[in-house]
């Protein structure tokens, strides 16, 4: 089953099968040791740059900043949801620790 993944409206959100699933302005707790010195960066999403799928995991590459230390940039690929039978399954991104992967789709 094919799944359409897109970034639209100037990086405002991730579209999965023509539905808006992940939006800028969310606040994520990241496991991203290479991004900044914070134990778990408190990261606000300002722009979505790319989206990809690895097995059942949908990852996004986003620009944003850690609101604890101010570091800005692109932390890597971040899991934002899962695929189940071609459908998007949300994860509670604002209450989970999201482990950043450096090279999932590069």
């Amino acid at each position, binding site marked *: 089953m094919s799944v*359409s993944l*897109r970034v*639209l*409206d*100037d*990086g*405002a*959100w991730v*579209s999965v*099968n*023509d*539905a*808006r699933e992940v*939006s*800028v*302005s*969310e*606040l994520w707790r990241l496991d991203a040791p290479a991004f900044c010195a914070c134990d778990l960066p*408190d990261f*606000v999403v*300002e*722009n979505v*740059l790319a989206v990809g799928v690895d097995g059942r995991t949908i990852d996004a590459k986003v620009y944003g*900043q850690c*609101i*604890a230390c*101010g570091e800005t940039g692109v932390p890597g690929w971040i899991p934002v949801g899962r695929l189940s039978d071609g459908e998007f399954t949300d994860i509670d991104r604002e209450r989970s620790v999201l482990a950043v992967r450096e090279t999932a789709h590069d």
Partner: protein
Amino acid sequence: MPTDVERWKSEVYGTEIREHLFRFAEEGWESIPEDERDAWFERFKWWGLYHQRNGQESYFMLRIGTPNGRLEPGQLRVVGEVAKEYATGPGTNPLFGDAYADFTTRQSIQLHWIKLEDVPDIFEKLEANGLSAQQACGDSWRNIVGNPMAGDDATEVVDAWPVIRELNETFKGNDDHSNLPRKWKVSVTGTPDGSGQGDINDLALEPAYKEIGGERTVGFNVRVGGGLARNEPRFARDIDVWVAPEDAPAVAGGLSALFRDHGDRENRYNARIKFLVDEWGPEKLRRVLQEEYVDFELETAGEDVRDQYTYNAGGEGRNDLLGVHDQKDGSNFVGLNVLVGRMGADDVIELADLAEEYGSGAARLTQRQNVIVPDVPDEKLDAFLAADLLEHYSPDPSPFMRGSVACTGTEFCSLSIVETKNRQVRFARWLKQNVELPDGVDEFHVHLSGCTASCAQPQIADVSLRGMKTRKDGEPVEALDVGLGGGLGEEPQFARWVTQRVPVDEVPGAIANLLANFDDQREGDETFREFVRRHDDDELAELVEPEETSYDDPMMHNTKRTWYPYAEDDSLDGSPAPSLADGTPITSDD
């Protein structure tokens, strides 16, 4: 590899979108195949329709492009009537009510809560009255901006309106220029005040003199590659070209074609021509334009009038177009303050009545989100200024009111991180009541933008505010980055971002403390921009002292996680969208 957007554009784009749009309108929202929605919503932008944000599915923002902000007699009334009849939805704004029109920083008009099914009727009414939403959004020639009083302003050195009108007629619906790599923003100005804000446009034509055939001739210098978005602000670069008014369409069309052919279609983040100018430099851009896109010898740049620029420059002279000003014909134009650019539909209609009674019925929109009533004769001026409506839309408002600019924000916009328009109204009202500007300071511009797209042009304000998040007492709250000292003029400068992530309820206190520090440490009669220029970022950060005050912010929470921030039940699960044409919620089958 071409992006999805480029692929969709290669299949259907430009004028032909209209027939599909009308078909979907006829058959209803649900007739758009679910797996084609992204593609159609992207295409609809070309006809001025932008799908509202998450939680507001099936509702659209409609942008009406008014070239140079020019509304001919009767058109303002049409805008008010369309807003009143169609721009209502399930959410009521606590400050602005159920139906309103937004005047934008690009002299356009935005209406919200538009139903797809109403679009044919709306277009019929707009077009019957000379108005259009064509190319108001999308990857093509956008609404052309400039001094909205072109042709009438007593100070102008060249009449830009015939040029703007010809550019608009030539490049709207022009198949050769309808599918560009990205938006194409053009400014044409004929006054020496800089009120076209050319420096922040993809293409700027600014007044300049050139010796042609032994005669000093007035025309335009050409600058290319300005823009503010995405943390990559640029001022337009001088490409050493002067153009006579009659040749402006050939040069502007040549540059648009150059952008069409050489802009980046593989990466939308790198697509604007500002990045091509970065890569090529002005000299190569000029050379390619000369060799491949125009068939006459380009003149080198003429003598500009930038040393006279005052608009949004922070010094003497007119920084905006508010108040009473002379027209060439001996009558007056009166600029009225529309706080954050939003006007209730009934007020729009009432202003149209006043414009007919005291002027010609025409109106103009400015890049500072204000409205102008032109053609008011001297003998009617006092009576017009005494009209009740002008108590609210004042020609001489508090500096905090006249200096306020705000984008759409999380109320409707997908990109924004924070609430903006209502917040800037609250900020301005609090500042007016609680803060004095130093002696002799009459202008103080505060621009609030919800994100880095910079629709409120935050980088060119005395105080620049940009949406962010932070934690306060452990809880996530809306916040603002604070920048200082931006503005246009002969030597434009972008604001320097000196303080990050100030909780929104501490921002008015920060501005109050900043102004007190400015008053204490000001040297002589220096302007705020001069004051900022002689301090480094660390020193400036010390002068911004965020502080809780009597200001209360009711929207501290994450307004983006609501379907509408002002709804009683604002949760996304409580959203009535999508809905049928009559507003009845469409329930899911599963």
